[in-house]
Structure formats: structure tokens, C-alpha cells
């Protein structure tokens, strides 16, 4: 049975939609290796065909007594059920940005959330977020438009003269 710490670690391996797909692919390879004729196939795959952080996490779980097939299966179920949070940024995020963003998501949304991150310079700053069917435009572009529409922007009205 996986605990919250384990889920948090798993979530760190699949922070984004891209990472989720890589992680699921790794789990598929490991699951296939379980049924291979070669008894050492699983270890071989774990050491050579998956990312180091994935391999490290799996090895740690196995060292704590987890059964290989049950572990792979429960990890896959957890990742498949994860909620997708679509986030559009005004810049291409670097690794630190993804970390900050993921920390915020873990803290405020909770476990089992995976970010689908994209970027669009036209939104100027902030983000556009879509989660659970809700769409929130938190961009600077929207705030600038609101300023102009509410007449708080520069007052240049030739037609009123």
C-alpha cells in the first residue's frame, strides 16, 4: 500500500503531462520485463531503460519490501487517475519555474495533480489556468485590457471632443 510520501514522490516523477507520458512508458517497460523469460530482465530494464530518478524511486520502494508487480500496477493506476491542470505561461519555463509551480500545485491543489504546461508570449505575464472544467485568465494581458476598458488607461478620446 502506497502512502502520501510515496505518492508525493511519484508525483515528482510526473509533474507535467510530458513527464507523465515518459513515466507511464517506463512503467510499461518494467511491467513487460516482469513477464520476460529472463529472470533478470526487470533489473536490466530498471538499470538501463528508465530514468535514473525513476530507477532510484523503484529500487527504494522494492528495498522497503514492495512487490514488483503490485508496485508497478499501483503506480500506473495513480498516474492514470491524476488530475490534469492546464497552465499557459507567458514564457518558456525553466526547471526552477516548474519546481515552483509544482510546489504551489501540491500545496494548493493537492496530490494527484499533473500540470499540462504551455507558453504564449501574447498573454504578457501571469497565467491562464484550466482545471476541473474551470477556466481562469490570470494573465497581465487581461488586466491591461480591463484597465483600458474601465477608462483607467490613458484618456485619449478624440470622438468626445
Amino acid at each position, binding site marked *: 500500500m502506497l502512502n502520501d510520501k510515496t505518492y508525493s514522490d511519484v508525483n515528482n516523477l510526473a509533474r507535467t503531462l510530458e513527464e507523465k507520458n515518459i513515466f507511464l512508458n517506463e512503467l510499461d517497460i518494467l511491467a513487460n520485463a516482469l513477464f520476460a523469460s529472463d529472470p533478470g530482465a526487470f533489473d536490466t530494464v530498471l538499470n538501463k531503460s528508465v530514468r535514473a530518478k525513476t530507477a532510484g524511486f523503484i529500487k527504494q520502494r522494492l528495498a522497503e519490501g514492495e512487490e514488483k508487480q503490485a508496485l508497478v500496477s499501483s503506480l500506473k493506476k495513480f498516474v492514470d487517475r491524476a488530475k490534469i491542470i492546464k497552465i499557459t*505561461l*507567458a*514564457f518558456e519555463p*525553466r526547471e*526552477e*519555474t516548474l519546481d*515552483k*509551480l509544482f510546489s*504551489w500545485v501540491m500545496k*494548493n*491543489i493537492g496530490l494527484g495533480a499533473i500540470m499540462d504546461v504551455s507558453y504564449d*508570449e*501574447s498573454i*504578457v*505575464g*501571469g*497565467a491562464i*489556468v484550466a*482545471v476541473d472544467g*474551470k477556466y*481562469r485568465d*490570470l*494573465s*497581465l*494581458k487581461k488586466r*491591461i*485590457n480591463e484597465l*483600458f476598458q474601465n477608462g483607467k*488607461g*490613458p484618456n*485619449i*478620446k*478624440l*470622438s468626445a*471632443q
Partner: protein
Amino acid sequence: MEGQTLLYASVLLTSILGIILGAVALSYKELIKKYYLLRDEHEKVVTSEKARQEELLKKAKAESDLIIQSARQKAQETINEAGIYSAKTKEIFEIEVKKASDTLINNFQEVLESAKTQTASAYGDISKDVRVEIVKQIETLRLALQQEIVRSQAEAKNVIAEQYKKIEAETKAYKEEKLKRVDDEILALLKEVSSKAIGKVLNFQDHEDILIEALDNAKRQNLL
């Protein structure tokens, strides 16, 4: 655009007025022509009637002369045939016959003169009536022309005033629309410039701070 439309409207109205004046002038010319024709015809009728009257008078005179001559002749014959009257009686009878014939001639002359006077008076009246009628028609035409000119002037004035108002309203609407478009374009440009300027001055750290702040605000407002 305003001046051109006014010019076109003025040219159009002047052309319409010119056509109306031309039509009136033609009508006037036709009326004058008709007047001359009537006058010629009247003169012809008067001349012809005078000739006829002269002829009638001559004929009447000849007939009366013939009647008198015949009466004298018959009287003479009667006297001669009778032979019973005295010279004195004959003289008295001749005097009486002459008196009677003179009276007859005078009466006849009076009747003829009266007829002549009546005819001349009748034709004189006709001439006068025609003249009065033509003068009346010319006056009516003059008044109608004057009224038409006044009416056309007023109409032209109204049309020009209406056109001017319409052009003024159109110009105002056009100006407002143009200015509104310029306003919109300026605002769009300002928004674009502001967005680009803000986007350029933000560094990575600023972007991340704004991002986290926006997410925090949304969370506080239960938007997420």
C-alpha cells in the same frame, strides 16, 4: 464633398428653373401668336362685313329706287288713264305720292342705318371682348409666371437648406465614426505597446513572481 453636393444641387435646381421658364416663355409666345391670329381674323371679318353692308345698302337703295320708280310709273299711268282728275288734283296727287315715296325712302334709309350701326356696334363689341380676353389671359399668365418664379425660388431655397442640413448631419456622423475608429486604433496600439513594453521589462524572476502571485490571488478568491 459638402461643397460639391451643394454645387450639384444648385446646378440641378437652376436647370429645373430654366426648363420651367423656357416652358412659360413658349406658352407666352404661343399666346401672342394666337392674339395676332385672332386680330387678323377679326380685321378680316370686319372688312368683309363692311363690304357686305355696303353691298346690302347698295342693293336696298337700288330696290327702293326701283319700287319708287315703279310706283311713280303706275301712278302716272293711273292718272293718265283716269283723265277725269283736274290738273289741280293731279298736282296734289303727285305731291302726296312724292311725300309718300320720300317718307318710304327715309324710313328705309333709317332702317338701313340702324342695321349698320347695330352691326358695327356688335363687331366693335366682339373686338373689344377679344382684346379684353387676351389682356386678361396675358395678365393671368404674368401672374402665374410670377407665382411660379416665387414658388420655384422658395422651393430651391428649401431644397438647398434641406440638402445642407443633410450634408451637415452626414458630415457630423462621418466625423464621429472616423474619430471613434481613431480612438479604437489608438487604444489598441496603446494596449499593444503597453503589453510589449511590460513583457520586455519583465525578467524570469519577475515572471515567476507574477505567476505565483496571480495563482495565490485566484486561490484566495476561490477561483481555483
